């Protein structure tokens, strides 16, 4: 879906850092999203000072205790404070999602750039393979990657990044093909510039807005996918206070201690929707064609 929005690369000169932020704040939904995301990022940065308890300290309160003044989100099976675990969870869930996105963007981008720039038969075959992989359920591909790599935090980052490669490669390939047709690329090549120089100095800056857009539109998905794998028991392992893992713990106690799953799930949802709202707004700002669609 996201790649449909950005089939043509937006004009580079429209991206201006401070301007984008100012425009983000002018719309209530994206302004609220920025506030929520800032709070969650503060959780991640200052977890030891914000969390009232050690996230792994057993018997910080009663076992499966309902929310009360001392434990506003209740306590879990081992009497650990759920609020503290949610705060610390931001330290795992957000960076894991971001690392996954960056890795996938880098690998997929490199592939897309190579396909688009080199072209010819290499591109014809490569693009077909990417198309086939693109339709394959990403979560199944990530699970397959986990079955090869094994279970764990680093493995889940790599697994989800691999599953995202086709999506990124396709969009970057398209953008590269358009960028290559610019006169300045042609003249650089005519002047005898090396391929590496053309890619780094001429093609990359041209497709940069597309890359930024892809990143902002897919960060939410990356956070969601990594949390999903952890929920399935294939990613971050307990007792790490990661949101997906906490939800997996809470699944057994939905009836007796629903607070175990309410708070981490809400944190995950808020993180994803704020990132998505910001991504949508950024795409409106960068891509003039979608401007004014709301």
């Amino acid at each position, binding site marked *: 879906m996201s790649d449909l929005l950005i089939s043509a690369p937006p004009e580079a000169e429209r991206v201006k850092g401070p301007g984008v932020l100012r425009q983000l704040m002018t719309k209530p939904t994206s302004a609220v999203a920025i506030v929520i995301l800032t709070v969650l990022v503060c959780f991640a940065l200052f977890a030891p000072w914000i969390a009232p308890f050690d996230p792994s300290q057993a018997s910080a309160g009663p076992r499966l205790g309902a929310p009360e003044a001392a434990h506003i989100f209740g306590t879990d099976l081992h009497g650990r404070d759920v609020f503290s675990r949610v705060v610390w969870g931001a330290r795992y869930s957000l960076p894991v999602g971001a690392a996954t996105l960056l890795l996938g963007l880098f690998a997929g981008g490199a592939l897309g750039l190579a396909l688009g720039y080199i072209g010819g038969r290499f591109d014809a075959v490569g693009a077909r*393979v990417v198309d*086939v992989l693109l*339709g*394959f*359920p990403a979560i199944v591909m990530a699970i397959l990657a986990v*079955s090869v790599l094994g279970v764990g935090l680093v493995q889940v980052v790599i697994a989800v990044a691999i599953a995202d490669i086709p999506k990124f490669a396709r969009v970057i390939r398209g953008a590269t093909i358009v960028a290559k047709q610019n006169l300045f690329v042609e003249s650089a090549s005519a002047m005898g510039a090396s391929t590496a120089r053309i890619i780094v100095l001429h093609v990359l800056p041209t497709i940069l807005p597309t890359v930024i857009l892809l990143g902002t539109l897919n960060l939410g998905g990356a956070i*969601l996918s990594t949390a999903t794998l952890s929920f399935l028991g294939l990613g971050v392992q307990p007792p790490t206070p990661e949101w997906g893992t906490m939800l997996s713990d*809470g*699944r057994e106690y939905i009836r007796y201690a629903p607070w175990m799953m309410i708070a981490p799930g809400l944190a995950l949802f808020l993180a*994803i929707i704020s990132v998505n709202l910001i991504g949508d707004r950024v795409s409106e700002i960068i891509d003039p064609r979608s401007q004014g669609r709301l």
Partner: protein
Amino acid sequence: MTYFLRRILALVPILVLTWSAVFFVFEAIPGDPVNLMLAGVPASEEVIANERARLGLDKPLMERYISFLGRAAVGDLGESFRTRAPVTEMILAQIGPTLQLAAAGLVVGLAMGLLLGVLAGLRPGTSLDTVCTFAALAGSSLPSFWTGMVLIYVFGSILGWVPIVGLGIDALILPAIVTGLFIAGDFARLVRSSIIDASRQDYIRTARAKGLPPIKVVGKHALRNALIPPVTMLGISLSNLIGGAVVTENVFARPGLGTMLVEGVLNKDMPLVQALVVYTTAAYLIINLLVDILYGLIDPRIRHARMAPR
């Protein structure tokens, strides 16, 4: 007809390519399959050697590769490390609940997406549009496994309206909603932009100018044309549905291929995982072919363009 035949034949190289990838990916997994199969149970050298011979592991790589492709084509993908039952039989036994869930999820997801998308697209820029667009975004931002748990808690535990476990139709309601959410948000956004595009066309203005009632303008003219892009997305949606079913089954502890896949990975039951991937790729490619055919049926222009003699 030759068009369809060509399309079907074109599937063969793609299947061979993906199955080759699957074979070599599994070859790359560290650890001897026989050791994985024994799962730590001590065994004599002779037993291990016999088992390797029985599984054909003593043959050279290329021979095993060719044999794998042949067996994949006829659905003989070996036996599960854990149950020792043929994996194809195990999968066939569990495919029913998954298909049921995917079908129900598709219906619910399309209904939700169509409703939100049409409501938003008919009055772009209004507060109705803003609400619907936000709902669609919220839908695709919800972690489905969490939504599932919240629904179980509210409708199963507190209200007691639906059973939480079981395979009856009433136990399918909540899982269908959760699976539907995987496609509803994206579908709604696409329907919305498609309707907005379609309603700017000349034939809509003509239909309005003729004095057709708005319901007819939307139903007969706008919707039919607006549905073409979303239908092409169905193929991608279906792969999201398969992914959604994997997660939903785990949340609701339903039997099915998704539960089987996750258990297979956790138990390192490689033949089972391998077979699930082989069949998913085949199913996905066939579904996409069907979507392409459906696309031609909705839009006669495409069908005729393809049928035209070269």
